[in-house]
């Protein structure tokens, strides 16, 4: 195949620039002919500062071979803006490229630049839909989540953007309750990014979130994501851990309690739960430490159990917690 730029009369006026002149580089990469050709011409247009339709084609060519080529992205962005090409078209092309190269920083950053330039809530709303399809295939993709969160705060539209986020998280956690990215997103929506419409009553919001976390813990108690959420919600709202003592205790026992009484505030471990749950033991020790006084000894007892039996990998850490608590006591 010869569709090299070097053989293309359209590019005859550009002087290609080889990567290394007069240097015998260490650790060289064996590029394909096509890649070498495209990047030689790319260096040529960067040097002359050319921004033209053919540069758009060239940067796309480089990006398709190496989406992490941040300079190609940078030059592409400058060219898009200088030529005032349709940002919608650019975004459409990006849909394809993003789907191919999900794990690349630059793919997402370029979208962000285009969205910023578009400055349209309509476009932002469409982005949320697109991102949903991306997350269907890769529900923990870091860049995708980070970008989604940026869309939400940057365009900050309660009705059109924020309103769908909590139900969306619930959908995802329904599918996989251990998806930590979804848990983080929920925290982001409910607690970190200001107050959502309808959530103005903060006490009510906290109650709802505690119930949500508890219910998910009951389903699969050894799920650190859910425990971290519970912990985070309490800390963020400066609510004492003792608020949830009654909930935590049954998860620290070896067997679920024999009871027919249903306490909606404190759902019991599921039938399949593997107890005691290490995260619950840790939580209960934190509750005791918070209470202080005589309870410190009970915390120490749990930490010893964790250190020597239940969570020996973190022995040093649990011993540190004992020293730390006794020093403060």
């Amino acid at each position, binding site marked *: 195949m010869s569709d090299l730029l070097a053989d293309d009369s359209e590019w005859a006026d550009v002087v290609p620039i080889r990567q290394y002149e007069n240097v*015998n580089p260490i650790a060289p990469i064996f590029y394909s002919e096509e890649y070498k050709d495209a990047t030689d011409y790319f260096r040529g247009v960067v040097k002359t500062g050319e921004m033209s339709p053919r540069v758009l084609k060239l940067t796309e060519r480089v990006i398709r071979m190496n989406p992490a080529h941040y300079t190609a992205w940078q030059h592409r962005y400058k060219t898009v803006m200088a030529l005032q090409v349709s940002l919608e078209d650019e975004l459409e092309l990006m849909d394809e490229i993003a789907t191919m190269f999900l794990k690349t920083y630059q793919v997402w950053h370029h979208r962000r630049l285009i969205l910023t330039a578009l400055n349209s809530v309509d476009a932002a709303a469409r982005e949320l839909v697109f991102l949903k399809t991306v997350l269907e295939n890769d529900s923990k993709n870091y860049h995708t989540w980070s970008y989604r969160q940026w869309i939400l705060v940057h365009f900050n539209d309660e009705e059109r953007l924020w309103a769908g986020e909590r139900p969306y998280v619930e959908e995802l956690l329904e599918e996989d309750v251990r998806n930590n990215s979804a848990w983080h997103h929920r925290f982001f929506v409910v607690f970190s990014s200001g107050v959502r419409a309808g959530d103005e009553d903060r006490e009510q919001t906290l109650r709802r979130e505690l119930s949500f976390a508890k219910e998910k813990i009951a389903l699969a108690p050894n799920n650190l994501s859910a425990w971290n959420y519970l912990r985070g919600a309490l800390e963020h709202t400066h609510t004492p851990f003792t608020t949830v003592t009654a909930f935590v205790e049954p998860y620290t026992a070896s067997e679920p309690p024999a009871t027919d009484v249903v306490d909606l505030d404190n759902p019991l471990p599921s039938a399949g739960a593997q107890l005691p749950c290490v995260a619950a033991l840790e939580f209960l020790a934190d509750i005791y430490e918070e209470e202080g006084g005589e309870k410190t000894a009970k915390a120490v007892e749990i930490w010893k159990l964790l250190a020597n039996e239940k969570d020996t990998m973190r022995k040093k850490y649990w011993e540190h917690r004992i020293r730390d608590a006794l020093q403060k006591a």
Partner: protein
Amino acid sequence: MAAPRASEMVATPTDGYPTATSSLQSDTEITIKSHLPSSGTPQIALQKKSHFEFLLRNLRQGLPERYTSQDASQPWLIYWTLHGFSILGAGLDDQTKKRTIETLLALQHPDGGFAGGPGQAAHLLPTYAAICAFAVVGRPGEGGGWDAIDRNKMYNFFMSLKQADGSFLVSHHGEVDVRGIYCLLVVATLLNLITPELLAGVPDFLATCQTYEGGFGNASFPGWAFGSDDTEATTPLSSPRDPTAPRPPLGEAHGGYTFCATASWVLLQPFIKLYHPPVPGNPLPEPKINTRALLRWCVQMQGLPIELGGFKGRTNKLVDGCYSWWVGGCVVLVETLLGLAAPHIAAGEEPADEHDEDSAKAWDDADDSLFNRRALQEYILCAGQHPAGGLRDKPPKPADAYHTLYCAAGLAAAQHRVVPSKAREKAVLLTWDPVQAHAKSGATYVSPSDVERETFEELRKQMFAHALSWSEEEGTTTYVGGAANRVNAAHPIFNLTITHADGILAHFYGQMPPSRYPPRGKK
């Protein structure tokens, strides 16, 4: 040291409720377990020679076409390989050093900073990799590379990336994230480019990247989109900034970002103390992070015995050898912030007289680290080594340069305890030459007042002394598989050997710090 016992290996509980996450986890546990050496194997050897040869092949023969994806990360490939040699205890011949220096200089951008390849744009990440590679191979003087770094232009490049919220873009039109900030701070520290204007707002930005889990996300959003308690949305970027408005972290707590944010935070300690004194009425409130939560998050990332104690990068994700450094290596930084890393006796120091009797005991007492150093070594040795050479994420993945370095550095962090030594810091300060340090600065910055100048000079001195104070704590080394598995220690902030960090710092600050290993007065 015997291999871990299979009897200890309880699978991660799934509570009779499997999901995609738990299924992937279970599969991984089975794979990892199958890579345990058969019972009765008394030693797990680090195949230094084959890892060395793996790296050498990259250097000598070059990298296969699939490395095209790293075309914009060329200095990284060089840094991973050369620092990998240093960790594994291999030196470099002069010809290789010369070629490396010439290659690196071809990556310097005419307007300052370093690029991922010749003719590419300058970027903070390759700048870090290039400067660290220079620390390994370079030297002062003609052809040595160090004096060919245009520090003045680099400083201007850094300042051109600075944002109003204290963060930095990684490149012009690039993204903001804490990796870039870490890279910038390390380079600015090593090259004597630190100024108050460069650091302004950086601690505040970092603090906003900490998530409710305790680790850090990749960036945060500037608060000006929000009213603090006002649900009325304000127009993005057009309203005046409300200092109490939320600045939410973007992205969940993650090992790589957590390391970068924590190492940056440790580097910034002198700046925070000097420029944010916690006195009433101070307009600059002291930025704070939740260090306890950070420690908890880091240790929670260490996998169970069935995962051989490797580290994960996020909650409910899989262990990966590279987090041996990003998270395992982060623990000592957090211990330092908590004041738990005061060494008993650091290498080359005399035990303090009044503690002569205790000191023997202190030397015996092996391990104050708050993560499981032995288990992490086992993970790297059993699961991290590729049989054909090089290190990896986990079996059955192939080895690559990135994982080879970060597994090796993680092994170093698990073998050696490197902590800030007060005695070393004092010794460095005794020989401090402020005139030289000032004259050697690469930054174009003029203090607005005499008082400010004094604070700035103090900042420079403290950052230098702190950087040089990190010392290996004697009597705390632990070699799983025996002393033949020893690798060299890495500086917990820079990820260079202590010798390389010392060398480049001394040069760019014009200092002659005392030797780390003075002759013993008595034996």
